[in-house]
């Protein structure tokens, strides 16, 4: 038996939005809230798929006016050239302003030291937080999604950071309805995640629907790679391969794009958007589980980095 007080017919109203329309509408709402309430917002933009989708949504949110934010890229110095190329073309096409904070500059003048494992992703935090402070950005958009990692599942859409950019998960503000609280003291800022409720699959479906251009490395191609910690890394001047790590040519693609030193490729024959979507829908591995070394460092790697100011 079912105990049902009233039993409406089991169908959606003709006004129900598709899930992509609902997510798009929510993200646009978030962009416009920030534009309405903050003085100096900035979009973190790397040329990777999440930041490209983020920028696409911002363009739609304010059209036909230009996006009222500038962009910030934290450049580890180990980027994929195809990604930087698309980054720069996109910035030029939409007449945007791009700030670049370079990890290499920090290493060159001694403010940061290269890590023994060669990973540069963890080194991004200092240039990021100093970039935010020096430009006095008060809202910083990131492409983080709650489905990426369990510490991110706890992240608010509006996430207050103190003057050291630190995240304190125990002191997060409750977030109700669509009422986002962006109040902050001078020196503090708010990280904003318009893609919070999107999954990897949503991002890809949206890219297909909106015909958004991506760097080629997201699609299967031949590449010289070598194996380290169970991942295919691209050989290059950044520091690989070491002796005993033979290079081979494989057909691979990237599910996520970060720094060459910590982002692995996956074996794949998916050369089109449809093929990528089919592959992801069937995958038994998460995006980060498959290809990110930095998350594997400890059970709380992501949470620890977020506490320090990382996204």
């Amino acid at each position, binding site marked *: 038996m079912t105990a049902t007080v009233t039993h*409406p017919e089991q169908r959606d109203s003709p*006004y129900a939005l598709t899930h992509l329309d609902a997510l798009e509408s929510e993200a*646009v709402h978030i962009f416009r809230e920030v534009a309405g309430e903050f003085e100096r917002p900035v979009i973190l933009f790397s040329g990777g798929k999440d930041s490209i989708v983020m920028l696409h949504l911002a363009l739609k949110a304010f059209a*036909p006016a230009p996006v009222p934010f500038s962009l910030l890229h934290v450049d580890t110095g180990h980027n994929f050239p195809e990604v930087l190329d698309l980054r720069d073309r996109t910035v030029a096409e939409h007449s945007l302003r791009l700030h670049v904070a370079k990890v290499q500059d920090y290493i060159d003048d001694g403010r940061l030291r290269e890590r023994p494992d060669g990973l540069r992703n963890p080194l991004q935090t200092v240039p990021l937080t100093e970039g935010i402070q020096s430009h006095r950005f008060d809202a910083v958009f990131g492409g983080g999604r709650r489905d990426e990692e369990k510490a991110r599942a706890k992240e608010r859409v509006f996430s207050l950071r103190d003057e050291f950019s630190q995240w304190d998960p125990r002191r997060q503000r409750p977030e109700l309805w669509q009422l986002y609280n962006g109040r902050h003291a001078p020196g503090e800022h708010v990280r904003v995640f318009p893609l919070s409720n999107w999954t990897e699959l949503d991002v890809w479906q949206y890219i297909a629907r909106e015909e958004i251009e991506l760097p080629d490395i997201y699609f299967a191609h031949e590449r010289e790679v070598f194996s380290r910690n169970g991942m295919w890394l691209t050989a290059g001047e950044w520091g690989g391969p070491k002796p005993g790590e033979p290079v081979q040519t494989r057909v691979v693609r990237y599910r996520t794009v970060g720094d060459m030193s910590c982002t692995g490729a996956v074996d794949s024959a998916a050369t089109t958007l449809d093929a990528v979507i*089919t592959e992801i829908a069937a995958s038994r591995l998460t995006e980060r589980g498959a290809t990110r070394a930095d998350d594997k460092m400890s059970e709380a790697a992501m949470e620890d980095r977020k506490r320090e100011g990382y996204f």
Partner: protein
Amino acid sequence: MTTTSPLTAEQLSATTLLRFATAGSVDDGKSTLVGRLLHDSKSVLSDQLEAVERASLGRGQEAPDLALLTDGLRAEREQGITIDVAYRYFATTRRRFILADTPGHVQYTRNMVTGASTAELAVVLVDARNGVVEQTRRHAAVAALLRVPHVVLAVNKMDLVEYAEPVFASIAKEFTAYAASLGVPEITAIPISALAGDNVVEPSANMDWYGGPTVLEHLETVPVSHDLTGCPARFPVQYVIRPQTAEHHDYRGYAGQIASGLLRVGEPVTVLPSGRTTTIAGIDALGRRVDTAWAPQSVTVLLADDLDVSRGDLIAPSGSVPALTQDVRATVAHLHERPLRIGDRVLLKHATRTVKAIVKALPYRIDLSHGLAHENEPAALEVNDIGAVQLRTAEPLPIDAYAMTRLTGSFLLIDPADGTTLTAGMAGEAFAEPPSAAGGAADDEGWDF
């Protein structure tokens, strides 16, 4: 039929989104239910499962502890507690789901209020051995208070009561009577065993007396988005779009997300608080010119006359305009350890407008656990308290009754000193009238959002 095989691009394109929340006490098996929904819908991927297995072994446990899937923070894992609402995502061929996973014990009211504020459905878990307990009544009351349109009572651990129908029937009857008395419009009771997997994703072979849907089947088929035509349109202006370029020299658009109802080109509208009237000249739906748009679409509205309209204003059809008021009476959930007292000066955030306000009176607080007893004129509202508040605002606000529309009927109270979110407010009466006993057609009126 429930399908959990990998989805094709075509299957995925037309799905809708259901936001739902779970509520349950510590030992009701909520983590197991969530873990099973994720696991059996194949939304837990092998690397996540391996991480859980590794962590469980490292802790000396023999079997993987599915609760570790949902406890994302170091302190939660160390202490074995859940601190905060977490959001989870899973999909079937029919629908995508956003689950607000609300912890059952610490600070429960605050967390459940947070999770329920955006939910279209709430799952309330009950242990079949214990039946309806104080916590169950609290969960039902919060769902009713937040006006969650659909409530599922999941009577769990049926395996521990020999899958006996009378046990289920009596719990379902008691809960349904209680929730209906609070005005919950639709209640569906499902007997389950989250541990054994009965009626969660797969129908149970142990309870052939039950002819209803499994939990997942119900989640897949419950209607989302009520009929909007009965609900007046509300359009809070978020941002004014003025390109001031050669190509769009005269473009002046009002950007926002439609909070409720439906907007039409040509419709006479009133802008609040000024009260000026005009008509809708055009609607841009993110790049497409459309004749109509509805909640919750984000659009840009163009008006026929050049009025002074800015962020914080509200556009509504001239035939059904909300009244402006500086005296707001509301039911509130107090969220912060800092108590709320008479005389407190706060900020009130309503839709896209934030104004100063003073707490003029605290008429009562409700004890959700004991049959909704009222304590009149409490000295303060403490964290997790539900009560009534009277506020005086510095400027008039077009606040609707929360019973009519969730988004223009809700607000936050914020501490002006440090920006802390103090209180969640719902304008008007706390609980809805019980649905009419006549049954039949769904009583959708007053339940739109």
